[in-house]
């Protein structure tokens, strides 16, 4: 019997402490598989954020550093400029990237820094207890918007990919999801493309991944999966927003 699919060598043997049905585990596994498939595990440095994935440094079987809230792109810039031979990625949630890390995110994209950002968008602050995040949908309930997000007082969500697409800097921007196998395969392909562009010294890439947070949303994992396809993907349309490699052709 030959192992066809199993825990990749890019992940450690530690069992992840995420809630049942959390999308983080799926994205962790995809990155772990790619570290092995692309043979880059030995030269990869990951930057873990603050949030549920704060323990990502324990889960990825490559060099990792854990940084203060929102500052992952700034630290990644420093790592990449001192070690340009390394593959550098940051792994950030929406509270980390789109709230306190907005300035870092925009400027790293404007500078076309040669790093990859893996951005997990679950439309809520997961770790702190399901509060309203910058990406919470209009009308969506959270512990700080119990009647649903009111756009008059709480404003509109930030569409990170569209925001960065207004800049000239970024090389590759794509939005994907991890709800069904077809989209999970597309997610893996997008991350692989982004890593390859970085290895080719093309420049900045950001992959936004719509992910489930059943605990924060107060639903079952299966309901959360359906909610991504039925509601979230309508507000955050999936697809490639920017690919300079294709534009050049």
């Amino acid at each position, binding site marked *: 019997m030959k192992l066809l699919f199993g825990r990749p060598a890019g992940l450690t043997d530690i069992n992840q402490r995420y809630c049942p049905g959390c999308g983080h585990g*799926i994205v962790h596994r995809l990155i772990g598989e790619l570290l092995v498939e692309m043979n880059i595990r030995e030269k990869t440095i990951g930057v873990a954020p603050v949030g549920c994935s704060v323990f990502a440094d324990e889960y990825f079987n490559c060099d990792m550093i854990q940084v203060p809230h929102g500052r992952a792109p700034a630290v990644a810039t420093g790592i990449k400029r001192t070690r340009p031979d390394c593959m550098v990625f940051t792994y950030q949630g929406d509270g980390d990237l789109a709230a306190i890390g907005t300035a870092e995110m925009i400027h790293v994209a404007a500078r076309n820094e040669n790093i990859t950002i893996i951005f997990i968008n679950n439309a809520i602050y997961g770790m702190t207890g399901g509060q309203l995040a910058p990406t919470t949908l209009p009308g969506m309930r959270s512990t700080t918007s119990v009647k649903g997000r009111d756009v008059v007082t709480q404003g509109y969500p930030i569409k990170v990919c569209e925001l960065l697409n207004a800049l000239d800097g970024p090389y590759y921007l794509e939005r994907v999801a991890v709800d069904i196998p077809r989209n999970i395969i597309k997610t893996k392909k997008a991350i692989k493309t982004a890593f390859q562009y970085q290895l080719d010294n093309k420049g900045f890439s950001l992959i936004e991944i719509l992910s489930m947070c059943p605990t924060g949303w107060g639903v079952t994992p299966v309901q959360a999966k359906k909610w991504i396809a039925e509601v979230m993907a309508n507000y955050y349309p999936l697809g490639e927003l920017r690919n300079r490699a294709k534009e050049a052709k």
Partner: protein
Amino acid sequence: MPEVKILEEVCKGCGLCCDNVCPVGILRLAPDRINSSGYHPAEITDMSKCIGCGYCYMTCPEPAIEVYK
């Protein structure tokens, strides 16, 4: 013949693999037993029908599923 092995102690019983993911529909959450964390783990009802596509592994966040052939 492909074979799916479910690591029951790792499984958190989220049920993502059991919801319209398996093309032959042989996955379900075990109704009669729990693991040491208190979750109903996923189980295979009829291994002979498995086609080894790996979709269950793909949707598993842990990953608690291994596919052999």
